């Protein structure tokens, strides 16, 4: 009746997941009760859950990502403290538990923390920067978000019902096959990642179509902000690579559920093929994460240097170069699997070559700062921390790209330090830089500067104190994922790393405090003009937060840095451009299809994990029926009357008049 599910699935014998689950359930219940008591459900349903507005969806993606980063960080704390405590000792985490923790840490951080944040930024910014009102497929956008949330939900449910995979964040066979993992852990992983993978693919298709087919008048390719170029290339990689993940995980699912022999080690299966295919996805995946991060920095450096970005065209070429070459390097993740010298050499060379694209970008950012008037606001601090951190991480990457060197460092702590170096240095720093930079745009008030500076310095110093010892440990011979340490000479490095974790905890606390304090002081930090940083691209032409239709009249773009040109002309002519002719605007209606589909997909996933076949069939049929039902609707759009548009825009123009006064009084623009 309930498949494999019975009461023993609840981890009564394991205190850590048990207590965590209880706390989480209490918090969730508390939040739900609060919402109910305050009668916020209609507002939440109307304005957020069924919203197809790219800005709302972007914020929800980011919120999901931040939440999951916290969970991933908790896993990291446990891992580092376990390793420090288990030097010729037991530690406090038994191996079967520790293995789930490092698997969950990787899976959550990459797939449910960083990916949603990157997707959230792209969703929020791309239509605003292109001067249009929404992405190409707004309703589909909502479906994609809710599917990602569904995957995240399944991963977290594994904490209190059942277990998670113990294979590492990429479930290599034969360990992940039924013969060696008969439990539900790998199944949780497979269904959660598959479901959220579909969501990611939907977002990728959406943004590619938006960038290529949906730009405002005059916005040619070479006038787009560089963030839109990196979003395009990242989403092209999503469209190219995520299907590989879908196919590979589907093959593993077929092996586990139907006894197929794709990756088994008997009857003609080939476990190495899994490694090959999954890294054919895995490498483009990290470029999917890092390209939008580069795009974020390409927006921040010009603004806070007061100069246009240096070398726009070389930036575009470098981005396209990285996009294409990133699909030709994946074997460097398994040099040691035995493909031989010829194959290893080819991929070693391509992995070294791809550094050239990134090098071009870094020089361009540095030259952007050179000769400019640099303002050390919080986003700029994160950006400069990124330059320093990422260069070193990239250099260790080029070291790893040399196959003979990789034979010594593969799967050692050197590798662990390298990939955290580049991911944290680029992606995490970019996320925090971008949050500080665009938070006023999204919510209408700035974040507190002092706590932002504290969060940056704790994070920057904490990162280096945590991970520099790991480089040393790797070169001393320590391999990754160890639950038990047999070499006391590693002790000082492991302890130093835990000190770094403590500093990082202070950084996370500072970041949370920054949010709390900013919300508390939001009136003092209010952004009244819509352009708090003296920005250069079109999103700063809108009020903060933008109206749901973004632009009252879509802009007519005549050069690079569209908004900068508008501002310059306004200051020179001492007036705003004349009031335009306001016309009614058609906007898409909200839809519950995303939430509805994702709800039944979660049930479907849960049922498949626990082999509750009748429930799986019912849930799938309900999801399909709901989809058809929503597709049957007659009304897709509603009209915003011209008077409403005029009213909103006149308020914006009044705020801009005030900004113009202030800028003129300040004299020349920076």
């Amino acid at each position, binding site marked *: 009746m309930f498949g494999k599910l019975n009461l023993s699935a609840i981890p009564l014998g394991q205190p850590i997941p048990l207590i965590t689950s209880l706390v989480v359930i209490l918090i969730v219940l508390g939040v739900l009760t609060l919402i109910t008591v305050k009668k916020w459900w209609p507002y939440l349903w109307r304005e957020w859950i069924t919203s197809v507005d790219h800005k709302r969806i972007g914020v929800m993606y980011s919120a999901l990502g931040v939440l999951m980063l916290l969970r991933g960080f908790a896993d990291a704390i446990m891992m580092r403290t376990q390793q420090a405590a288990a030097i010729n000792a037991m530690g406090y985490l038994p191996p079967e538990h520790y293995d789930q923790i490092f698997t969950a840490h990787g899976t959550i951080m990459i797939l449910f923390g960083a990916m949603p944040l990157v997707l959230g930024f792209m969703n929020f910014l791309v239509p605003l920067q292109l001067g249009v009102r929404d992405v190409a497929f707004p309703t589909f956008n909502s479906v994609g978000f809710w599917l990602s949330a569904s995957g995240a939900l399944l991963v977290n449910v594994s904490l209190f019902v059942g277990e998670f995979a113990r294979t590492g964040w990429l479930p290599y066979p034969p360990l992940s096959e039924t013969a060696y993992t008969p439990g539900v852990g790998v199944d949780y992983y497979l269904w959660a990642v598959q479901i959220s993978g579909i969501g990611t693919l939907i977002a990728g298709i959406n943004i590619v179509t938006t960038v290529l*087919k949906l730009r405002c008048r005059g916005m040619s390719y070479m006038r787009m902000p560089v963030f839109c170029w990196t979003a395009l290339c990242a989403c092209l990689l999503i469209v190219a690579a995520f299907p590989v993940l879908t196919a590979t995980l589907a093959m593993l699912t077929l092996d586990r559920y139907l006894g197929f022999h794709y990756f088994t080690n008997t009857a003609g299966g080939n476990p*190495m*093929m899994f490694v*090959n295919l999954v890294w054919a996805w895995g490498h483009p995946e990290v470029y999917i994460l890092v390209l939008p991060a580069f795009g974020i920095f390409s927006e921040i450096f010009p603004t806070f240097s007061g100069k246009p970005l240096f070398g726009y065209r070389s930036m575009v070429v470098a981005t396209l170069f990285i996009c*294409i070459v990133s*699909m*030709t390097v994946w074997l460097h993740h398994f040099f040691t*699997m*035995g*493909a031989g010298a010829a194959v290893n050499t080819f991929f070693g060379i391509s992995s070294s070559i791809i550094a050239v694209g990134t090098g071009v970008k870094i020089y361009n950012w540095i030259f952007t700062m050179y000769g400019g008037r640099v303002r050390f606001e919080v986003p700029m601090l994160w950006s400069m921390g990124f330059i320093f951190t990422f260069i070193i991480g990239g250099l260790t990457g080029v070291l790893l790209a040399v196959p003979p060197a990789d034979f010594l460092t593969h799967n050692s702590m050197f590798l662990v330090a390298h990939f955290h170096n580049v991911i944290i240095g680029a992606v995490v720093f970019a996320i925090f830089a971008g949050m500080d930079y665009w938070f006023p745009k999204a919510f209408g008030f700035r974040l507190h500067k002092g706590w932002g500076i504290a969060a940056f310095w704790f994070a920057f110093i904490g990162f280096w104190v945590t991970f520099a010892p790991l480089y040393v440990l790797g070169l001393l011979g320590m391999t990754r994922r160890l639950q038990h340490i047999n070499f006391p000479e590693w002790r000082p490095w492991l302890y130093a790393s835990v000190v770094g974790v403590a500093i990082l905890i202070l950084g996370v606390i500072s970041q949370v405090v920054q949010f709390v304090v900013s919300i508390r002081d939001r009136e003092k930090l209010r952004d009244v003009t819509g352009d708090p940083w003296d920005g250069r691209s079109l999103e700063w032409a809108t009020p903060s937060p933008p109206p749901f239709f973004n632009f009252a009249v879509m802009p007519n773009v005549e050069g690079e840095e569209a908004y900068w040109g508008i501002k310059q002309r306004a200051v020179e002519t001492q007036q705003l451009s004349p009031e335009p002719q306001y016309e009614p605007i058609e906007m898409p209606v909200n839809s519950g299809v995303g939430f509805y589909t994702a709800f039944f997909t979660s049930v479907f996933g849960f049922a498949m994990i626990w082999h509750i076949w009748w429930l799986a069939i019912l849930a799938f049929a309900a999801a399909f029926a709901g989809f058809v039902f929503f597709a049957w609707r007659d009304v897709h759009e509603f009209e915003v009357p011209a008077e409403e548009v005029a009213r909103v825009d006149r308020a914006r123009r009044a705020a801009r008049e005030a900004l113009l006064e202030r800028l003129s009084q300040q004299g020349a623009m920076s």
Partner: protein
Amino acid sequence: MSDLNERADHAPGDEPPGEESGHWVRNANLGLAFSIVLTVAAFLLAGSHVIYMPAIPVALLVLAIAQMGVHLVFFLHITTGPDNTNNVLALAFGILVVFLVVAGSIWIMDHLSQNMMPTNQMGQMP
């Protein structure tokens, strides 16, 4: 929104603006005729001795690629005009990805199996 009479793009599988349905049906008929010829040729070729035996797989591949091209041009109306540039570029990108994944995987897996220890079991890779 942009006027279709301006130089607007054209979606694949769609008829371009201003084209009459006669053209469309003619494309369908031509596409079907070419496809039938190529399919029959492939089926007749396989297992026959018309050409040098080891060349048959290559010939079959050529016929398959030709027929895929027929489908793309006649059924999906992928042309080289400026209104189709995005479609062609996307297709080229897709073909590149398919080539990298398939050829790369075959190359890698072949070399991996070359370096596996020899075994007397029948169930191993060739």
